């Protein structure tokens, strides 16, 4: 089964001191290598800080945009891993090794893999 691990923290890389960010990058290299080797890895990305975000809505055929992420929270989405795991507990175990879990939090979301979704998204 596939799980998306969303990494949230009060500080993203850009807001850390150079030394701390460097150490953090190093930990991410190790973690990503490890899950590539173990076969859990499906994909990942780091996101630019929320001040680079634009949120849009379409209402009455009009595109409306606002600055920033759609949710105003102290915790910001900083990146994600898409992983393959046997079940939710294995996903939790893998996600617990994400370096960001030690300073922020990680939300583990199962990916919908029902037939209708897979059809709609063109996977089958």
């Amino acid at each position, binding site marked *: 089964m596939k799980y998306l691990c969303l990494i949230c923290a009060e500080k993203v890389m850009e807001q850390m001191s150079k030394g701390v960010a460097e150490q953090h990058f190093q*930990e991410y290299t190790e973690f990503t290598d*490890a899950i590539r080797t173990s076969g859990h890895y499906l994909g990942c990305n780091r996101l630019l800080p929320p001040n680079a975000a634009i949120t849009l809505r379409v209402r009455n055929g009009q595109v409306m945009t606002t600055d920033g992420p759609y949710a105003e929270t102290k915790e910001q989405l900083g990146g994600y891993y898409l992983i393959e795991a046997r*079940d*939710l507990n*294995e996903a*939790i*175990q893998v996600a617990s090794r994400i370096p960001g879990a030690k300073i922020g939090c990680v939300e583990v979301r199962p990916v919908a893999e029902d037939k209708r979704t897979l059809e709609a998204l063109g996977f089958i």
Partner: protein
Amino acid sequence: MSQAFCKATEIHEAIEVIYRNHSRHVFATLIRLLGDFDMAEEALHDAFKAAVEQWPSDGIPANPRAWLVSVGRFKGIDAIRRSARFEQLPEDIEERLAADIPEGLDGEGIEDDRLRLIFTCCHPALLPEAQIALTLREVCGLTTEAIASAFLIAPTTLAQRIVRAKTKIRSARIPYQVPSADRLRDRLGNVLRVVYLIFNEGYFASSGDSLVRPELSEEAIRLGRLLVELLPEAEAQGLLALMLLQESRRAARCLPSGDLVLLAEQDRALWNQNYIVEGSRLVEQALSSRRFGPYSLQAAIAAVHANAASAEATDWAEIVALYDILLSFDPSPIIELNRAVAVAMRDGPLPGLALIDAILARGELNDYHLAHSSRADLCRRLGRIAEAKASYQLAFNLSQLAPGRRFLARRLDELQN
């Protein structure tokens, strides 16, 4: 298709079979070697990944289980050393890593590990529902999502239950061992209780539209067989017998519509004779050991039913006698109720009704729907229709499960006409 491709496919299939049959053995041993559930799970995963990568070219090793344990242990040590750069490690870790690969990676040692795993998952320091969840996931290898769906609870609830239980095992330092002889009986009792709860949830689902969830009962029987194999105690045999004898009636106790069929009205040709033969043999073994207890006695009662040609031809005197012994082990009002029903079969409805009324008068089973439906049934047989209707109505109001409610509604309906 090229020959190499065929061979690779064959090896992948062989690995899948080995995963199904041996991954839990390997996991149990890795927990002992690495001292941690999560580390062992990662190491197991890595060992099978290595097998998928190496076996197609190197061939399947002569002893795949020993190979997987040895590779898993090596990978686990590697992971511990890697994380040592970021995290504090348990104090005794160096000692554990320095130890030689222990003797007997196969054979008896490994079987002991499975037993250690069962006793740890069913440790009384863990919450009862956590014991069930851990046993199904770690011993049986079910996924979190599958267990959650069988128990009709949210996967997130179950996942957290498992995480907390593992944290508890770590923080309370619950030892990974088979209890010593003086505590074995007591602790085995707890393991048997967990297995029987799993069986019952599959056999008499406590809520929902479907009367049974066969996958849970199957897992419980598998666990029961494993226990008898690893620890041939009378009560383990008794519990396995009890589950087999109940399971033998699965096809007959439920109509395709999901409606309940009472024992007396079941088509006995649908009973599974293989289970009955196996269960009856185990009952005899358990009873002859003289170390039997409540499970063996309940199994003995089930065996009398299973070997009778019809409800009328059942040896009700034998059943009442077995209930008397059972009550001496476990003086519970529910067992008394069952004994009362057996007395009604042996001596007629009136003496049975007197016994049920006495139990109800004590107030212990007033909220138990089966007490009222049993009373209703005896009243019906005595022609006391008004009383029967009132008791069926009480039972209906107390019953949680849709098929049971439909059955009671049908009985009420029959009495109206």
